[in-house]
């Protein structure tokens, strides 16, 4: 924490910079992992492109995790670029901003990007011809480093920033961990095949990425920054190293190192837990966050978004998305405004839409299929793959598990995927938990190596859902039982109270009886006592009107009955008379 000696700034800062650039860190390995074909080219080599605005943009009012968002605009509202469209009332999920100026024309149900392709309500923004930004509040780096971290983290939240690596976890929440953070790990591994948006970002905007990292380290008080990039991205590594030379380190006195390290290409090295193990050799204890080890991991794109938010005041409204696959005519990384339907990206890039067999949102290992091309691209979408049938063939029907154990060797979480599979299949949920089902990160390495082509991850997802449901059910049952027990206790209390009152009354009655008997005795002995008649008088008086009313009612009913009977009698006699007449007329003789 010792401040840099300020007497000879020029010399000192040069010396310091030399010690900062420590790129020879000892690396570790994580268990398992696979080496699928990379398929990152040609998209990673092609220059970035900016996707023009679509006619209509769609913003779900429910997050992918099912959290509802509240629209802050109404139908027919005109919005400016950067204006907040929706926010989370619980304050957990950062707000959604308009990536373009235009008019809200509807709130309708459309297919969401969730793997279930569920229909959710979405704001529909019709983009206008003339685009205008909301006024942005810019800051210089000097201003940022003198601002309190809490303010900066609030700004990051307000800018709508979430983890752009794919999980879309709110960045502000991650940054405001109470634990002391020593090291910031910037994740540029991008280990999944096909995806190259982080590669492209590091190549073209290395300075912003690194500046973002410095800003984050300031927010959390981290003294060491490690940027990890897989060795299949030499250009990105070179650009980062070049950009590092010109960073304003003098503004960040507490920083002690900024390392750019090359890690071996192995899927899933970009998984947060795996990356931590590669760099520190430590494993995040079960149920803990990386902050527990004094670490924080951020994606490179998130760092760039933080830079945009703090320095330029620009909220997160777009991101780089890799469009790739053999059916993509121009595979490249596109800067896509959020809310853009996939269809727009495909038609702009001249993709052969009529030949599509499947569309994958995300990578080939963890992404999911999209069935509706109107599905909007959101913050968590890093890649759209449009493969041919031969390129990523649909898996053949699964064969029997032969217990070969290749999955165990591939599992980065050191689980026994095969045992999990047998127990999931048998619906032995307790057993799946014994085998640590919830430590599965769903990376798909097990299914990738499975010689029987068993969709293992699907079994685990199903099992996780079943276990969660079962627990919810148990909790519900428990709550119901507690409620029931409380109700019984309440009823018993009422019963007891009643019994007590009854007892009390009995005692009182007894007392009264005794008193009456005593009074009678007294009366008999002394006629002047008039307390008893007075006591009983109010009750008789009270009863009187009731009795009267009852008697009246009875009388009225009796009266009515009598009237009815009389009327019926009269009618009957009338009828008889007429019948006689008829009879007479029908029979002349």
């Amino acid at each position, binding site marked *: 924490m010792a401040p840099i000696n300020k007497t000879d700034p020029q010399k000192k800062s040069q010396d310091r910079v030399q010690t900062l650039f420590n790129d020879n860190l000892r690396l570790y390995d994580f*268990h398992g992992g696979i080496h699928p*074909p990379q398929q990152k080219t040609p998209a990673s080599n092609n220059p970035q492109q900016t996707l023009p605005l679509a006619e209509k943009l769609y913003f779900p009012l429910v997050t992918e995790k099912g959290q509802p968002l509240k629209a802050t605009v109404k139908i027919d509202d005109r919005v400016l670029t950067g204006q907040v469209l929706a926010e989370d009332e619980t304050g957990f999920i950062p707000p959604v901003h308009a990536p373009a100026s235009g008019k809200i024309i509807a709130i309708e149900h459309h297919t969401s990007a969730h793997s279930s*392709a569920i229909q959710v309500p979405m704001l529909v923004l019709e983009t206008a011809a003339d685009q205008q930004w909301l006024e942005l509040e810019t800051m210089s780096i000097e201003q940022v480093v003198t601002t309190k971290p809490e303010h900066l983290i609030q700004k990051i939240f307000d800018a709508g920033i979430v983890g752009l690596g794919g999980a879309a976890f709110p960045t502000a929440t991650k940054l405001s961990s*109470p*634990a002391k953070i020593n090291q910031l790990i910037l994740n540029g591994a991008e280990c999944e*095949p096909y995806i190259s948006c982080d590669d492209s970002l590091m190549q073209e905007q290395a300075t912003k990425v690194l500046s973002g990292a410095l800003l984050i380290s300031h927010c959390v008080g981290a003294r060491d920054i490690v940027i990890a990039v897989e060795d299949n991205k030499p250009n990105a590594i070179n650009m980062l190293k070049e950009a590092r030379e010109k960073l304003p380190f003098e503004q960040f006195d507490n920083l002690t190192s900024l390392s750019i390290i090359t890690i071996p290409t192995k899927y899933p090295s970009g998984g947060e*837990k795996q990356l931590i193990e590669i760099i520190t050799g*430590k*494993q*995040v*204890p*079960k149920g*803990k966050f990386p902050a*527990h*080890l*004094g670490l924080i991991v951020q994606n490179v794109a998130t760092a760039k978004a933080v830079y945009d938010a703090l320095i330029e005041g620009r909220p997160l409204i777009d991101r780089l998305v890799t469009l790739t696959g053999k059916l993509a005519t121009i595979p490249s990384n596109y800067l896509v405004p959020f809310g853009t339907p996939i269809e727009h990206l495909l038609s702009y890039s001249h993709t052969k839409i009529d030949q599509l*067999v*499947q569309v994958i949102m*995300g990578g*080939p*290992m*963890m*992404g*999911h*299929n*999209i*069935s509706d091309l109107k599905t909007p691209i959101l913050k968590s979408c890093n890649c759209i793959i449009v*493969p041919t049938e031969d390129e*990523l063939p649909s*898996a053949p029907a699964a*064969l*029997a598990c*032969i*217990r*070969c*154990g*290749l999955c*165990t*060797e591939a599992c*980065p*979480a*050191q*689980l*026994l995927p*095969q*045992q999990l599979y047998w127990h999931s299949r048998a619906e032995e949920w307790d057993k799946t938990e014994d*085998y*640590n089902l919830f*430590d599965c990160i*769903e990376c*798909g390495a097990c*299914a*990738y190596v*499975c*010689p*029987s*082509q068993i*969709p293992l*991850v*699907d079994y685990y997802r199903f099992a996780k859902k079943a276990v969660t449901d079962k627990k919810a059910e148990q909790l519900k049952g428990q709550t119901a039982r507690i409620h029931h027990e409380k109700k019984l206790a309440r009823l018993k209390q009422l019963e007891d109270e009643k019994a007590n009152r009854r007892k009390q009354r009995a005692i009182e009655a007894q007392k009264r009886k005794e008193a009456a008997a005593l009074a009678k005795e007294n009366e008999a002995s002394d006629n002047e006592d008039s307390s008893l008649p007075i006591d009983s008088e109010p009750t008789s008086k009270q009863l009187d009107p009731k009795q009267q009313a009852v008697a009246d009612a009875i009388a009225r009913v009796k009266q009515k009955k009598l009237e009815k009977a009389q009327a019926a009698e009269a009618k009957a006699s009338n009828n008889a008379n007429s019948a006689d007449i008829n009879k007479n007329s029908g029979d002349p003789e």
Partner: protein
Amino acid sequence: MLYRTPAPHSIGGNQVSLMMITLVAATLPGMFVQTYFFGWGVLIQVIFASFIALLTEAAILHLRQRPIKKTLFDGSALVTGWLIGLAIPSVAPWWLTMTAVIFAIIFAKHIYGGLGYNPFNPAMAGYVLVLISFPVQMTAWLPVSALLTESLGFIDSVWLIFTEQTSNGLTVNLLRTGVDGFTLATPLDTLKTDLNNGLMVSEILNKNIFGSFAGKGWEYVNLAYLIGGLFLLYKKIISWQIPFSMLITLFVFSFFFSVFTPEQYPGPMLHLLSGATMMGAFFIATDPVSASTTPKGRIVYGIGIGILVYVIRTFGGYPEALAFAVLLMNLSAPTIDHFTQPEVYGHGSSQEKERTNNRGNI
């Protein structure tokens, strides 16, 4: 219409059928060396056993109303038949092979639910059934071709297997008789009998059925299977734990016994290069379905087989022990698996320490 399948959308090139075929291919060196030393009977047995295995599998799949084509070509039945063919004496009568194969496919495999569900190694279950039921035929190994008084051609081998005598009327027992008029047994068998008769190891090893390291012919057969096994390891069809732990255990046991009483217990070379040691270590004990599945468990499993092989060979009633050792360890595999679960990420004991160390920071 866009299709939707669960992730991952990219799958590696591993296939059960490919693994099985590679396994069969890896036995070829051993099979050819075996054929060279023990005659055409080896090839005939392998082909016959594989044919019966596929036929039985198809019939059972038909009865169980399972997709015949898909399951038949997973290659597992072929491997079972193939291994039985290699394990059975080359001149064993056809009905013996057929009994072993049919039992293996129907009772050791399909009764339990087919591939993936069998608790026992089917090939070894079939082998042990006929070994116990027909001990005479199952121990009637011919000596290496060079020691035969009558040479045995391909046609005669076929005759011998399917009619139990050659075209000129020789039976297996006649063929096994050496020039001195004594029946020639396998090296391990001879060793056992002679040790029981009070001979010393050095005397026994001087007999003409022994070669430079172990039994004549057998030593090269074992080396050929070792090469095939290393190929399997290289192709990652099997993992190193079972064969290595088994062979090392066998080495350690035979080494220590032979160091202290060399005239009573033969050395490690003989154990490693005799009988079914190498074939067992790489091709039979590694059957994934019936073996232990955890990495540590596989080491325990291999050690268990190594110990049992040594103990049964040295102190038991049978000269060869691999089939029994494998079946006994098959029984223990689920228990071994239960106690050898790997440490899951973030669950380790080192993590506990980490937790207490870092508590001060939070």
